[in-house]
């Protein structure tokens, strides 16, 4: 049993193989056609096979070449940053730009280890004013400013 010497490559390779297989399986519903008349399934199938091959090579290298260990994974920044962005996208149409901006700024600031709540609120209010001025009034983007406009 070979053991994993380059975990980053090993995992990356597995990821590529998995996506390649997914592309082949999901793409099996689309008509392949022939080389002369390529159907919608032809190119994705080609790419899927190529990705599986490349991914396998990366996995193999992960078994043969030494490399650094996998870095740690901290959930807090990932969850807080992406969560606050998704929340903003979900509510801006109903809650309006001002409230969603303040919420996004305060929430996202909490991802930092130097989080200071009061500072975040003040920054949120200032940025809300700026966002309304630049995006809603200046660039005339279709964004409601206050709740209940839509």
């Amino acid at each position, binding site marked *: 049993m070979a053991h994993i010497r380059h975990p980053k490559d090993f995992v*990356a390779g597995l990821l590529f193989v998995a*996506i390649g297989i997914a592309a082949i399986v999901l793409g099996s519903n689309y008509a392949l056609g022939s080389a002369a008349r390529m159907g*919608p399934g032809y190119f994705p199938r080609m790419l899927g096979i190529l990705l599986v091959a490349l991914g396998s090579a990366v996995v193999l*290298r992960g078994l043969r070449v030494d490399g650094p260990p996998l870095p740690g994974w*901290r959930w807090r920044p990932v969850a807080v940053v992406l969560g606050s962005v998704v929340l903003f996208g979900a509510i801006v149409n109903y809650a309006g730009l001002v409230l969603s901006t303040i919420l996004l700024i305060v929430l996202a600031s909490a991802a930092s280890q130097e989080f200071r709540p009061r500072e*975040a609120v003040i920054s949120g209010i200032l940025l809300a004013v700026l966002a309304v001025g630049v995006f809603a009034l200046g660039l005339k983007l279709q964004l409601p400013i206050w709740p209940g406009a839509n």
Partner: protein
Amino acid sequence: MELLSHLALGFSVALTPVNLLYAFIGSMLGTLIGVLPGIGPVATIAMLLPTTYALQPVSALIMLAGIYYGAQYGGSTTSILLNMPGETSSAVTCLDGHQMALQGQAGAALAIAALGSFFAGTVSTVLVAGVSIPLSELALKFGPAEYFSLMVLGLIGAVVLAHGSLLKAIAMIVLGLLLGIVGTDVNSGAARFAFGIPELTDGIGVVSVAMGLFGFAEIITNLETTEKREVIASKVKGLWITKEQFRQAWPAVLRGTGLGSMLGVLPGGGAMLASFASYALEKKIAKDPSRFGKGAIQGVAGPESANNAGAQTSFIPLLTLGIPENAVMALMVGAMTIHNIQPGPQVITSNPGLFWGLIASMWVGNLMLVVLNLPLIGMWIKLLQVPYRLLYPAILLFCSIGVYSISNTSFDVMQTAFFGLLGVIFVKLECEPAPLLLGFVLGPLMEENLRRALLLSRGDPTVFFTRPLSLAMLLAAAFLLLLIIAPAFRKTREVAFQEE
């Protein structure tokens, strides 16, 4: 003389008040993000792309282009004064630029960086103008087989010159191509990999991919490290350089401009590669290489000219062939597509005002930068004192507003967050995201040209090898791959990227 009339047309477009304004906004924003670490041109252009819908296409492209070359000016400022590159393309400037600043020569370093950049910007503007017509005429003769092979060459070239594992980079391209074909197939009308989600039938948005992989992922990884930035600005006294310094610097500016212009045109090239290569060249040919790293003015003049030249000539393949060669150009393809312009050789003839206007605006923007940048240095330094904990939520906000306003749906925001997550995973696994973005943009084009080439040849795949131009390009791609597998080249490539 034809060139002059083209440039005259270009300036007549670039010098209208509206376009002057957008060139100004673009280059100022570019300088700003060049100064600020933690946000690069790709994320910024992605952020601003949606806000350009309402603009004339030419104004939009002028502004977005300004961001790219403006970032080259801004990046050098922080490298010299703070030993902190705002952009990767200015990383080598730290080596000697900051040493000069410590020796009380900050003014001279900034001045030579700005003047060198301006000189390089001027030369490369002329170069872009001169090369474009012949290249686009050549490209118009291309059939689908040639186009397909050209894209293969472009994509392979892009990963050979990039750093990191070659195998992973090629896999990232293929993944990008796959993501690129998500959505409705133009020929059969079949919705591919859409999972029944209506928004996905239109395909994945380039803004979401770029912003997630480059913007969000960068912010998240920055937050994981707790390293604090300390801003200790050296005093800037007098921006003038002595005669002796000028005499030492100008040959380096010339070499940097030449090398940068050449490397900018190559696939995978652009500002970063140009500056690293130029530094290596200056060090190699110097009479006394030991002076490098201790404040050699050539070590500032060369790379700073080169990165600006490279930033500008990297527009050549995009504007003449329709092939983006780095992540910034991939986004420019997105910008052109949004404004219903199909990038390619036909742009010069179908849209001459846009084409020449964009080129002329680069020179105009460079002039603004050299005039405005030096007096504004104090302001940039102030901005750097804004702590990251205040900065990144604001960046997230502008990104979110930008991506939401593409089609006013929360789906786009979620999609961007998904690519942000993917981006963090790629950072952890050391997979470079730039090749993925290139593949993503080229996916549909590559499929279309492959389909047409094989249709014309009645399914015979040898068509790619029997047409001379196509064969030449595939051979060049194979040669590049061989080069990198060859141990000697591999070694120098590793050394070249060591200096980061």
